[in-house]
């Protein structure tokens, strides 16, 4: 391997690593607030990419119908579970966000999609369709389990993952898609040919990470989310509506997932079930960093991207194996160094 190839692989690795960083950071965020290991984050990413692809083709994306299904399911389940405690105001809000909004979006997309309005419209429509799904998924699957153990929540998350993959197949079909990049073309940088697309991925990733930093460090809402993660009872006592924090965390997850999907759609071919591997690599990054620190998670995820890129070159048949095996020494090391550490936030 000469240095040109090495640099080329590095570029590839860093770009994929940036996407994994977004996934990893999202997993850390969701886990911190809700103790859920959000396995299905990958599905949201795949759906976002598939949505952009459908819009580029002038077709109505499956997500528009899916959103209506999820909205109706969330409303129906909540009605069935808690009809005694729901106030008229809450019912009205539910009607608006769970039924009116999804149907409105569906109708709008049916009208607008055939016009092929271009990149900006596609991005906005994708965000509009994907972002509300976060809190819908939370309400359908996780809210009733808010007090459950980490293990039960993980099992629920895996269940949701399978359900979403199934829904993805129904609504998008088995075909793979690739979307047009935000920026095309290249420019030389020393010995390296850099794709503008790579630059755009990096810039967007950094913007998202910076936005998260500002949100958690500077805003009351962000601090309330952190506080809920640290001490749920303490957060309730200062008036944080801890039930809402789960929804907020999932809304953030869906937003970052949609952005990741829009980015990754132009890097590689995405199928209805491509999300799992993407999610898993972000997860490896998050685990390498101990499922705690955001900056470390981002760095570890970039490392995962680089490792994947180089192992694809040297031993392409084993690339996934290599990536997932690095988790073993890390887990071993962790279990040896933190043997006395036990779950401090189990009490509610």
């Amino acid at each position, binding site marked *: 391997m000469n240095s040109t190839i090495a640099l080329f692989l590095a570029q590839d690795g860093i770009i994929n690593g940036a996407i994994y960083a977004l996934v990893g950071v999202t997993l850390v965020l969701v886990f911190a607030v809700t103790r859920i290991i959000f396995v299905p984050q990958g599905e949201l990413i795949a759906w976002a990419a598939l949505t952009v692809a459908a819009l580029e083709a002038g077709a109505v994306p499956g997500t528009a119908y899916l959103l209506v299904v999820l909205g109706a399911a969330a409303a129906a389940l909540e009605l069935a579970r808690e009809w005694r*405690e729901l106030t008229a105001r809450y019912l009205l809000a539910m009607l608006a966000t769970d039924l009116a909004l999804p149907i409105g979006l569906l109708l709008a997309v049916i009208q607008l999609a055939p016009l092929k309005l271009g990149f900006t419209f596609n991005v906005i429509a994708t965000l509009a369709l994907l972002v509300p799904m976060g809190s819908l998924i939370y309400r359908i699957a996780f809210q009733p389990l808010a007090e459950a153990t980490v293990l039960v929540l993980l099992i629920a998350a895996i269940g949701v993952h399978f359900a979403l993959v199934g829904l993805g197949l129904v609504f998008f079909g088995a075909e793979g898609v690739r979307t047009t990049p935000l920026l095309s073309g290249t420019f030389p940088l020393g010995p390296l040919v850099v794709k503008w697309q790579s630059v755009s991925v990096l810039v967007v990733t950094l913007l998202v990470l910076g936005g998260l930093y500002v949100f958690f460090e500077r*805003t*009351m809402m962000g*601090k*309330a989310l*952190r*506080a809920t993660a*640290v*001490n749920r*009872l*303490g*957060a*309730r*006592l*200062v*008036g*944080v*509506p*801890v039930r809402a924090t789960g929804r907020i965390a999932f809304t953030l997850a869906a937003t970052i997932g949609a952005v990741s999907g829009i980015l990754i759609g132009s890097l590689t071919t995405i199928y209805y079930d491509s999300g799992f591997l993407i999610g898993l690599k972000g997860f490896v990054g998050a685990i390498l960093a101990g499922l705690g620190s955001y900056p470390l998670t981002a760095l570890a995820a970039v490392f995962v991207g680089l490792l994947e890129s180089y192992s694809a070159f040297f031993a392409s048949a084993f690339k996934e194996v290599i990536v997932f095996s690095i988790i073993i020494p890390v887990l071993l090391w962790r279990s040896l160094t933190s043997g006395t550490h036990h779950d401090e936030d189990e009490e509610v």
Partner: protein
Amino acid sequence: MSDAILKVSNLSVAYGRVEAVRGVSLSIPHGNIVTVIGANGAGKTTLMNAIMGVLPSVGEVALDGKPMGRSLVEARVNNGLCLVPEKRELFSTMSVEDNLRLGAYRFGSSAVPGGLRDVFARFPRLEERRKQEAGTLSGGERQMLAMGRALMSRPRLLMLDEPSLGLAPLIVKEIFHIVTDLRKAGVSILLVEQNARAALQVADYAYVMELGEFTMSGPAAELAADKRVIESYLGLGGGRH
């Protein structure tokens, strides 16, 4: 509007089958300090948690004459209720300042600067430590932080569960000073204290709790002179355990 800010009628709280609070009634007039004294395990903490909505209970809790039903903790906080819990429940991995900021959650960021100024004036120590993680504070500093966080929410009814626990005498004095100060500012207070003598001194009215029930009640000065109270709770040495 009734003249009691809080009225508890026939309240019972159970942990599984065990009833820790049984049919308790109490009323806190506006701007008064009411104290509940009782031995360890009498049910004082349980009572406060139930009033705050942290524990489910049977019976009625009314704020300003309006029953709170099964309303959530955050709704009660928004109505001006605030509890400094026995275990403090601080945000241990966040800074002192962030803990205080979150105390003002119900008003949003705009209430933070004024609130911080007031709290730092009362507890200069907290200002010195503002960037330090709450989990690394000394025991006394943690108490101050818990109190400060509560003050940030500008409560109308403040419930203090053993605010002087483990504090040096000088700080205990400061805490009781704050309690009387708050009363002057019109804040109503429900106080639970191991230091029954000090509690009875600042309080207007007192209840004695035994095994989940109120067995005596009356103006604090009267109870402080009652023979049974002196024997059981004030002792000879000043009521400290």
